[in-house]
């Protein structure tokens, strides 16, 4: 385990601090996801040149935004060394809440969403207090999210408020809109998980919980914070999903759970915890999502798209053997 993971650095104040913390946390492992993303977009561009325009990139990346938030939610949990098996259904549940309540009775929707954040934080507290593996608590929670979602919205549909659809489908000149949203999402996670003073405690709890506990921090509070943050990103993901598809669907996002785990690992995260990789997770999610659309553009039969997506994932992660060696 690297030293910078166990001893939280003070990146310093101001812009120079941002650049410094970025430089020291960006190695060959972190370069894998961006390289894969650029390569995938290039291949898509060769197959269909119109992709390489602002509107082309917008089209290519817009469907990736919910997965970006899912990856950030998952990253909050993976930073602690835990895994969340409920991300996908949670995002689906949020989209159901949005589609059923946000338009007609926004306050009920807000109350439900706040309740969900509290439930997530409670799950974190339970993991810590009873020493139950997070994998199982979140597995149980995933059934709860699915059940709640189906009882709120039994079949896909509902009414998504017009403003949300507008917010998610803006067209911007020069810089494609999804790139702006992804950058803002990554920036938010960067501020919350790397720049705030408490985030050092949080990352420290991921790599060395005993040391953090002995230093007088409450691990229960740490877990509640991380899980609560995961819920916030999950809610943003649900809002994005509802806005893009202009409907609610509890089950449509089921595969986000595992894809979000893969995005975080692709972006440089580690299952052992202690490493927060906000921009890595964002770019990892974009790459995984683009891999799917790229295959459609180059004419791979839809039956094989998922399989080739899996192969691409393996190939990119295999690059880690090389980059890990060069690091050590």
């Amino acid at each position: 385990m690297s030293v910078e993971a166990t001893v939280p650095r003070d990146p310093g104040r101001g812009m120079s601090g941002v650049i410094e913390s970025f430089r020291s946390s960006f190695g060959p492992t972190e370069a894998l996801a961006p390289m894969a993303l650029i390569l995938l977009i290039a291949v898509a561009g060769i197959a269909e040149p119109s992709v390489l325009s602002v509107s082309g990139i917008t089209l290519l990346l817009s469907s990736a935004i919910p997965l970006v938030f899912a990856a950030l939610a998952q990253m909050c949990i993976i930073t602690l060394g835990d895994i969340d098996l409920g991300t996908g259904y949670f995002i689906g549940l949020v989209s159901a809440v949005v589609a059923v309540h946000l338009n007609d009775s926004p306050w009920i929707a807000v109350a439900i969403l706040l309740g969900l954040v509290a439930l997530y934080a409670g799950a974190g507290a339970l993991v810590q207090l009873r020493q139950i593996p997070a994998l199982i608590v979140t597995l149980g929670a995933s059934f709860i999210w699915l059940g709640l979602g189906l009882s709120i919205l039994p079949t896909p549909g509902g009414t998504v408020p017009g403003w949300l659809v507008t917010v998610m489908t803006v067209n911007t000149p020069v810089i494609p809109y999804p790139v702006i949203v992804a950058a803002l999402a990554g920036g938010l996670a960067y501020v919350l998980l790397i720049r705030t003073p408490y985030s050092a405690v949080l990352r420290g709890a991921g790599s060395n919980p005993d040391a953090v506990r002995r230093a007088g921090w409450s691990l229960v509070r740490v877990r509640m914070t991380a899980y609560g943050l995961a819920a916030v990103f999950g809610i943003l993901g649900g809002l994005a999903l509802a806005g893009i598809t202009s409907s609610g669907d509890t089950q449509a996002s089921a595969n986000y759970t595992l894809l979000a785990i893969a995005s975080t690992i692709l972006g440089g995260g580690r299952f052992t915890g202690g490493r927060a990789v906000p921009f890595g997770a964002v770019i990892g999610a974009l790459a995984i999502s683009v891999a799917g659309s790229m295959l459609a553009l180059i004419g791979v039969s839809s039956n094989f798209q998922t399989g080739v997506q899996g192969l691409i994932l393996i190939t990119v992660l295999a690059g880690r053997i090389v980059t890990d060696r060069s690091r050590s």
Partner: protein
Amino acid sequence: MTADAVLAPGSRRAVSREWLAGHRWIWVYLSAFLTWVAISVANGRADAEVIAAVFSLAPFLVLVGIGQMFVITLGDGHTDLTVPNVVSLSAFVATGAMYGADGSIARGLMLALAAGVAAAALSTIVIVGLRVPSMVATLAVGMIVQSATTETASRFAASPDPDLATFTHLRIGPISVLGVICVLIALGFGFVLHRMVYGRMAQAIGQSKAAAELAGVPVGRVVLTTYVISGCLAALAGALLGAFASPSLAIGEPYLLNSIAVVVLGGSLISGGRSNLPGIWGSAMFLLLLTTLLNTLSVGVATQYVIKGVLIILVLALMGAKKDR
């Protein structure tokens, strides 16, 4: 004074507590029994047929669960996420090969097992050779298997083999034959896990990979064997399920989360190194009895999910599953 201090090591209560710690699967059998009592109360009579029915449905989940348990025994986050896809693929492959004039049950089973072994070999190459974490590696391999399934399904035109279908439903008196066979299979794998060198090695890796390596355990080979066991059992479950019901793309889906759930509810440590077979059967029966109870009370599907989720968390919280770090 704590309760532990009061108990002298040799006292009867200390012994029984130690016994309970080693037999944590007792709880899930107790839960299953209480669920059956609840069903009986709801029905107004003690109904053994409920147990017989659940016993005939459980084998599929038990087979997949045993495989998942072996993988989880390896520790270090090892989890086989390919199982739902292997179940679906083998349901199609086996049913297809058994159909028609030149179809044969043996060839169907062999092809299904070959699919399971192929998935397992690929997973192992990615995990051991490319050093990709198990959960991501098996997710990616699962995606490849899923493509194979959609491709097979798109040119699929067969119906389940009538003989095998009859066999999967066959009962002697109230007792399901397939259920009995799966009890024997579970006993066999219990022997493999606790008495054979391979099983001991798998547990050793789960307890401490570094120590196992130093002790000369061939980690790569044991990992391969473990994933092959999981792949073959998922394939067998899929082939049987294809005959029991009929193949569909989503037929394997429930086995992803449920296979992990039965392992952990059964008292095996999710962190690996300590697993038990009786717990798999107990948890599979418990989950199916729970579904029966909720159906008896005409609870809707949505609410059933919520109750199931709460119970999984509750049982674990009460059992006080230690992370065993």
